[in-house]
């Protein structure tokens, strides 16, 4: 034992040195370190702990933890030190003092040689400023999140590859989805534009935008349609720009629903087209009318003057009957011109109701009227393969088709005998039964380059090039309204001079 004492005495300076070093280490730590007994009486504390309440270490030794820091006579609720004493395990937690100071506390149970808990070491760090900063951040995040979410514009943040990182609620409305998280967040635009066939062209558009942004970094604005799975189309105006979040580059899209504006623009455009067409049409009618009516007047005036001259001066023209006939025909031509313009105007301006009608009788009535009008010309009209009855869905304009074709066949014919053959047959086209009528004449024929132009719809184009008046424009329009077709071929293939074959097909009604 003696030896032991001597040995102890020998270690004493060393132990003191270690204790001094340990104290220096503990004193130099910025964390609060407090050694407490099981009742949280303070046995020892470092300087940082004493400084935290602006007291000396000596002042606090013997005091009670919750009294010193919480000015309370009760153990703090959820005290990690108390818990570590109870469960015998290290614990941690946050405690806020009545003065609003927050500490992050770790409690470590301290045991004696027998393993009995004799107290606990509390290591605490004041995190009041950190907590405030955190709160400020949360408040700020909440404020901007609120702005973000309440924005009527869709806002989306993409990475540089086009994957959507975040977006607001307006985006759900824009993309017709109820579940942003599942449907579009963390999805690449190539994926969500790929769902709808009609939205697929947006993929190259967005790829182009992304590449341009990455290359130039300049804000881009563009408009695009979004086809919705439920049907319908939505028009969007987007502003895309580069954004730096931390060290990461992102792309921000702010998208506005401009469907209403776009529809209004489209309506305006349609309206403009409609009025432009109406303006062209009026000019066309005006032009055709003034041209044709002046030709008619020329015929009548010259005929009348020649009759007068013949009477007055006996100029040797013994063709008064022929001249009178010209006058009669020109009056009829003028009447037809006015009627055609009126008919065309009717077709352009209203939807005409179609009814099932028998057409043979209509055709024959027109032929009878034609023979009477052109009684001074020898006209031979034959009907080949005439059916008993043929029904088509037509309206009161049907006679205009026959009348215009037959008048043309007579007027553009220099032969002494005008031959017209009307052929009936039936054809099936695209599963539809059509009645086919061919009007084959021995007139002057139609030049190959004119075969399509005589029906040309483009009024401006027609104006300068064609002198055939309104008849065929009207016929084509009426036939089109009956869901039929009209075209012209040579009577003898490849030789237009032998005459024309005007072919009409109309859907047959059984």
């Amino acid at each position: 034992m003696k030896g032991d004492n001597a040995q102890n005495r020998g270690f004493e300076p060393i132990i003191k040195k270690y204790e001094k070093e340990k104290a220096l280490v503990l004193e130099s730590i910025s964390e609060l370190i407090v050694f407490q007994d099981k009742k949280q009486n303070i046995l020892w504390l470092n300087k940082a702990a004493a400084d935290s309440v602006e007291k000396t270490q000596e002042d606090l030794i013997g005091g009670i933890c919750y009294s010193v820091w919480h000015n309370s006579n009760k153990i703090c609720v959820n005290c990690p030190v108390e818990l570590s004493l109870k469960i015998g395990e290290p614990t941690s937690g946050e405690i806020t003092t009545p003065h609003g100071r927050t500490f992050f506390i770790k409690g470590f149970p301290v045991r004696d040689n027998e393993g009995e808990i004799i107290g606990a070491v509390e290591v605490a760090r004041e995190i009041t400023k950190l907590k405030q900063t955190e709160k400020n951040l949360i408040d700020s995040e909440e404020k901007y999140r609120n702005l973000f979410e309440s924005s009527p514009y869709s806002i989306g943040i993409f990475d540089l590859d086009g994957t959507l990182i975040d977006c607001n609620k307006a985006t759900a409305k824009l993309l017709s989805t109820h579940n942003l998280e599942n449907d579009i967040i963390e999805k690449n635009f190539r994926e969500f534009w790929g769902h709808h066939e009609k939205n697929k062209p947006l993929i190259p558009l967005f790829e182009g935008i992304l590449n341009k942004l990455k290359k130039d970094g300049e804000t881009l604005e563009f408009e695009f349609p979004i086809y919705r799975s439920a049907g319908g189309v939505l028009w969007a105006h987007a502003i895309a720009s580069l954004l730096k979040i931390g060290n990461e580059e992102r792309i921000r899209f702010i998208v506005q629903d401009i469907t209403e504006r776009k529809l209004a623009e489209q309506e305006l455009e349609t309206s403009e087209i409609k009025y432009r067409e109406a303006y062209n049409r009026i000019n066309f009618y005006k032009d055709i009318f003034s041209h044709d009516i002046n030709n008619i007047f020329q015929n009548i005036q010259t005929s009348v003057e020649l009759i007068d001259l013949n009477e007055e001066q006996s100029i040797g023209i013994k063709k008064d009957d022929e001249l009178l006939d010209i006058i009669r025909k020109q009056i009829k031509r003028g009447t037809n011109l006015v009627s055609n313009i009126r008919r065309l105007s009717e077709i352009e301006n209203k939807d005409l109701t179609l009814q099932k009608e028998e057409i043979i009788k209509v055709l024959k009535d027109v032929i009878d009227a034609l023979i009477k009008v052109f009684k001074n010309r020898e006209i031979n009209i034959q009907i080949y393969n005439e059916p008993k009855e043929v029904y088509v869905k037509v309206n009161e304009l049907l006679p205009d088709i026959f009348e215009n074709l037959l008048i043309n066949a007579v007027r553009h014919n220099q032969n002494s005998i005008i031959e017209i053959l009307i052929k009936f047959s039936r054809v099936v086209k695209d599963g539809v039964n059509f009645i086919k009528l061919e009007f084959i004449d021995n007139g002057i024929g139609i030049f190959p380059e004119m075969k399509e132009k005589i029906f040309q719809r483009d009024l401006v184009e027609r104006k300068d090039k064609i002198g055939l008046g309104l008849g065929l424009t009207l016929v084509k329009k009426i036939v089109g309204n009956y869901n039929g077709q009209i075209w012209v071929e040579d009577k003898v293939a490849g030789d237009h001079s032998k005459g024309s074959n005007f072919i009409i097909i109309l859907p047959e009604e059984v």
Partner: protein
Amino acid sequence: MEDDLSLQKLYEMMIFTFGFKVVGKANNGKEAIEKFYALTNKPDVILMDHRMPVQNGIDTALILLKLKKPPKIIFTSADISIKNRALAINGLTFLEKPFTVKALHDEIIKVLGIS
């Protein structure tokens, strides 16, 4: 050159009463040029309409007026919009339809330089 067949006939009658002879008739510009080249006895004056199928009067006149010995061309058109274009072409005169028999007579006399 006129695609209105009754007017063709009336022009022929008028020209006959003036004491001239019609050497050829055409329904459009293309036909007129073909006939002009084919005729041994070339016309001194051509009455030319403008708005006709295949080739219009102005285009036809421009071809004929380039010839070494171009004919005199009187434009007879109901198309007033073409009047300025026609009159800008050297060698063309213009008669607006409807014109009188006397007006045509005077115009022919004028272009032929007959007093």
